[in-house]
């Protein structure tokens, strides 16, 4: 059926009257944000935008300060078990060993061979999901995650708390560098990329807004000067 349908649809579209008189002139895409590329300004804009969509922002100096902040967040939220992505930010930090030292079981995708066990862990066991981020977009306060084995989709979705960590040099002004890196370079395109702007939210009942509808109730982003 599909091959016939394909020809039927395409031939009807191709032979439509009044086509092929040349394309309309396209104006260039206008800039969407009007701020420079100075690092501190980008980070500050990101913070403002993130807080505007009910995200929480923290800034730390280095790995040590990051661990202190994580410990504080784990305590405050009663996190005993968590899953951390093995992405380009978190993998080199080897947080699992550190977490064991403070009594938190932190597992990574490498601990799972069976997708069913992974799903079970994320849906039923994890109190929090930890990820890095490929980029932080300042103009909208957005976290960009390119999914692969290390950055599995459910880590940033199923647990009630999502903590994301990124070095300050990953903050960009807008989407151009993101599109260039993920969709226009010679590397392979990720199976899925997610742009996260705030915690899961809805206002579908009587226009009453609240967070944590199907995804995380809290989104915490920690930007580190160096890691």
């Amino acid at each position, binding site marked *: 059926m599909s091959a016939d349908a394909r020809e039927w649809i395409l031939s009807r579209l191709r032979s*439509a009257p009044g086509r092929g008189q040349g394309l309309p002139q396209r104006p260039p895409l206008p800039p969407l944000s009007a701020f420079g590329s100075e690092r501190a300004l980008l980070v500050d804009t990101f913070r403002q935008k993130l807080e505007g969509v009910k995200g929480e922002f923290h800034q730390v100096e280095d790995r040590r300060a990051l661990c202190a902040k994580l410990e504080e967040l784990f305590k405050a939220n009663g996190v005993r078990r968590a899953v951390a992505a093995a992405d380009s930010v978190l993998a080199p930090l080897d947080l699992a060993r550190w977490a064991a030292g403070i009594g938190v079981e932190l597992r990574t995708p490498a601990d799972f061979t069976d997708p069913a066990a992974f799903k079970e862990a994320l849906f039923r066991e994890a109190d929090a999901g930890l990820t890095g981020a490929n980029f932080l977009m300042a103009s909208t306060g957005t976290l960009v995650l390119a999914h692969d*084995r290390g950055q599995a989709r459910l880590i940033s979705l199923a647990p009630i708390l999502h903590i994301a960590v990124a070095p300050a040099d990953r903050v960009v002004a807008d989407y151009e560098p993101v*599109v260039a890196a993920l969709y226009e370079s010679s590397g392979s395109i990720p199976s899925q990329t997610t742009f996260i702007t705030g915690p899961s939210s809805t206002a*579908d009942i009587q226009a009453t807004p609240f967070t944590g509808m199907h995804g995380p109730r809290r989104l915490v982003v920690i930007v580190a000067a160096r890691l």
Partner: protein
Amino acid sequence: MDIKTDRFRETVRKELVNPETQKFLGFFPLVLSAMRSATLAGLPDSEAALASAAAIRAEAVERLPELLEEFERNATAAGARVVWARDSEEANRYICDLAREKKVACVTKGKSMVTEEMGLREELEKAGIEVWETDLGEFITQLLDLPPFHIIGPAINVPVETIRDIFHEKAGLEEPTNDPVQLGYAARKFLREKFYRAEMGVTGVNIAVASTGTVINVENEGNIRHCKSGPRIQVSVLSLEKVVPTMRDAFHMLRVLCMCATGQSLGTYASFDTGPRKAGELDGPEELHIVLLDNGRSAAYRNPKTRDALKCIRCAACLSVCPVYGKIGGYPYGWAYSGPMGQVVNPLLLGLDRTEDLYGACTLCQRCKAACPAGIDHPRMILYYRSRQAEGDSELKGKGAPWSGKALHRFYSAAVRNPALWKAMAKGLRWAANRYEKDGKISKAPGPAEGWFRSRDLPRFPDRTFHDRWKEIEKTLERGEKP
């Protein structure tokens, strides 16, 4: 879903006196509209951004067949299966057969107008498969068997008491509560088990990218992400006009869509799929099926006068500014698409004969056209539908005006072109209308004019016409006197 476009008038009468509807219409469209303006005002050059969006849509529609082929090639290369469907029936059959063949017992769905249009949920249920709408608003409308009230908030008008009772009955709500937040969390808990168990996730597509073969969804709740993460099969239904040339075009459209729909600079979650999960990945679908749906769109495309309807990105900016939607809400439009968007799209997909009251209910005030980021001229299209309906049109299923209506308009057309006849008629009508005057007002008239007076009055006509008085004034002036 059932098509109820022919019950427009009776539903309007009910909705005009429905306090829940009127309560929401009193602020919801205004708030959405204000949020849209505020977010657009934050752009360095919002006019250029909107002009650019309209240009992208114009190019996408102009190059539609080529872009679809390019999209198909790239999506297939990424491992997706692209399936073409001439109509809803073909699309539904493919998806139901797929579910049966793969032994799917439970399907979770993301909010999508195109699957509402197809009636996919009903077809899957008929095939014995458990289907759950997972957007909170859609979940409520599914349980209550209601059509969407608004494309953004399908159940925003439903009172908490009704939601409490239906959740208690059908969604495992243990402690009845009137707190919207607690009701939301009850739905979270209930649907989480469905996400865990579902073997198939079905979503629509907001934007498809030709140059990469990517499909994009945007949402706030995370239910669409769940539909695309846990289940082993993903079906993305793509209404064929949604393809754009490049990823940069797509991102621009995505931001304009979010700004115009809800006033957000970006929805909470935008997820971009290029093929199914890759080897070694722990989640995401093993199979990605993209169903490309025509269902009347190629027919609309073949008429240059109706082609522009395919530019629509379903942002619903037109709903928030429409004075008619603002009084009657979404139910009277009787199908997946309401407001000016529905007035433009529904007649093309269903036929002019079944949707006469929809394109009839327009004041031609032009606010929808001004708000539209895709560059659609709704009033022009609505006038075109009215003319095709009056003259009769086999393609668009315009049934032709009745003999009496045609005769009346022919007579009117002759009369307005003949000054003597016009003047005589004007005099005659004044005399006739003034017979119904009471206390200086005319509030009713018999025959075909009765409806006009249902919600309006006219002041009594002066005995002499403007032309008569003007002649007199001229004479006075000629005599050198002051009129």
